[in-house]
């Protein structure tokens, strides 16, 4: 008698996902309150604060709220997503700079979008494979995030400021681009 070789994944064929409809964006960022979700990785907080600083000068954003995600390797807990969404019009998330935290930063971006809050995720360019794979898992294939060159952890404060300058325009574009859809 012949029998099939057993599948060790335990998974069934996935249905094609509907994809992610992004939260609706403000027309521009003027007066918009910004939530920063930092993951506690080295330089993450400074990086996000510097980005917020640039947004304040160039786009006259309003209040800035900073929150720390205590477990960098896991997606943000629902209470934190609720709280930061309530406190801010848009969020900036980062910095994805390790195996687990890059993937979870993407999951956070998708969580906020589904919650109705526009999000911009910043991730080191060494982790795009795991970031893209997480977007697939979250049924948001092709989810757009912003990359910064690896490494981030070892940068001096001045270098972090330069990096923030480099990504700020794309962050603004992602947060204010009305009706942008993923592929």
């Amino acid at each position: 008698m012949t029998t099939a070789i057993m599948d060790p994944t335990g998974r069934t064929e996935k249905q094609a996902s509907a994809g992610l409809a992004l939260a609706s964006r403000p027309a521009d960022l003027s007066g918009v309150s910004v939530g920063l979700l930092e993951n506690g990785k080295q330089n993450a907080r400074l990086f996000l604060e510097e980005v917020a600083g640039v947004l304040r000068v160039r786009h006259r954003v309003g209040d800035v709220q900073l929150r720390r995600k205590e477990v960098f390797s896991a997606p943000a807990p629902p209470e934190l997503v609720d709280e930061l969404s309530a406190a801010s019009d848009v969020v900036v998330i980062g910095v994805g700079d390790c195996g687990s935290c890059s993937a979870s930063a993407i999951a956070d971006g998708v969580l906020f979008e589904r919650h109705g809050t526009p999000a911009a995720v910043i991730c080191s360019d060494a982790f795009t494979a795991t970031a893209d794979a997480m977007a697939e898992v979250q049924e948001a294939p092709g989810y757009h995030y912003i990359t910064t060159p690896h490494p981030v952890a070892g940068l001096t404060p001045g270098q972090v400021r330069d990096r923030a300058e480099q990504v700020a325009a794309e962050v603004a574009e992602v947060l204010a681009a009305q009706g942008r859809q993923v592929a």
Partner: protein
Amino acid sequence: MAGDLMAGEPDPDVAREAIEYCYEQGWTDGLPVVPASPELVDQFLAQTDRAPDEVLWRMDHLNTECTVQTAAINAAMAGCLPEYFPVVLAAWDAVMLDRAAKGGGWQSTSGPAPLIVVNGPIRHQLELNCTGGIFAGGFRPNATIPRALGLMMRNAFGVAPHVFDQTTQGIPGRWAICFGENEEESPWEPLATEMGLEPGANAVSCTLTRTFEFVDNRHTQDPEQLLWDFADTISRTGVMIFRTQSAGIVLCPEHAQMLADAGYAKTDVKDWLVEHCGRVEADLRHAGKDAVSEGGHGARCAGEHERVPGDVFSPFMPGRESVPIVVAGARNAAISMVFRVFGEWSNSSVAVETTNLIAAVSDAGG
């Protein structure tokens, strides 16, 4: 003609075809796997009272999980015999007591390796190596039990290299570290007994590790000199990324016996190491690891200015509970292995649950 297939002999071409099929599905860790038939998997499931559809673990963030049945398939593919399966299940439960394993440890750039230690008579029933060459391969249960966990991680949880597994370089033999404690030549009680299980219990203890380094010290009779040698190896700056770093030792019987003969209980060894493992500020400064980041998760980094005098000593080990010590290997030379714990050792052991059938057989045989 030589090479003709005799009646009843397995067909190597059919076997190879089945193995290649598994490669094509992406189900292997690079080495050939045993293609798992339902009949073989049923033999594994017969070794446990746990239901096939019981979920061993779920990774919510990856939307993946592993059931007892999926674990059995992967254990069969790893080359385990069915009777190893209760140890595979206990090893899984033991490693998941580690906080880092529950979080993102498996996706980590460190690529931590589970270190699996087995206690109890099941070591002999399964012919698990406890003596010469515990890290060196050559024994089926030692090689296949940890490999089963690696295949579960890859296949069931979807944590595969270059995607969700972001290991930078990893640890040599990452999924191949499993041995029995050499209880017969250890001067101390078995690890599982120390962890509070009944003496003689079949049990598995596990922690995630991030580096191994051996200490060869066979020409001293002074236990303190030996302990200094361990402390020097444990106290390297290279592995330090946070304020503290746990480390353990797989003591060879000769080292363990020497310490015990000098009056050291295992806890005395642990306490000595906790007190003496660490570095002075000047050494940490040389390595750019004298400061501990305030903004992040306590990562070590270069301080902007001198915080304390260069001769101030920083102990590395958080406490006695963070120093796993086990005795294994041959008694033919005084060579022991230091390993660094990836996160935080659970400081506990998990009993191996076998079905009543197996327990009865081993009682009759014993």
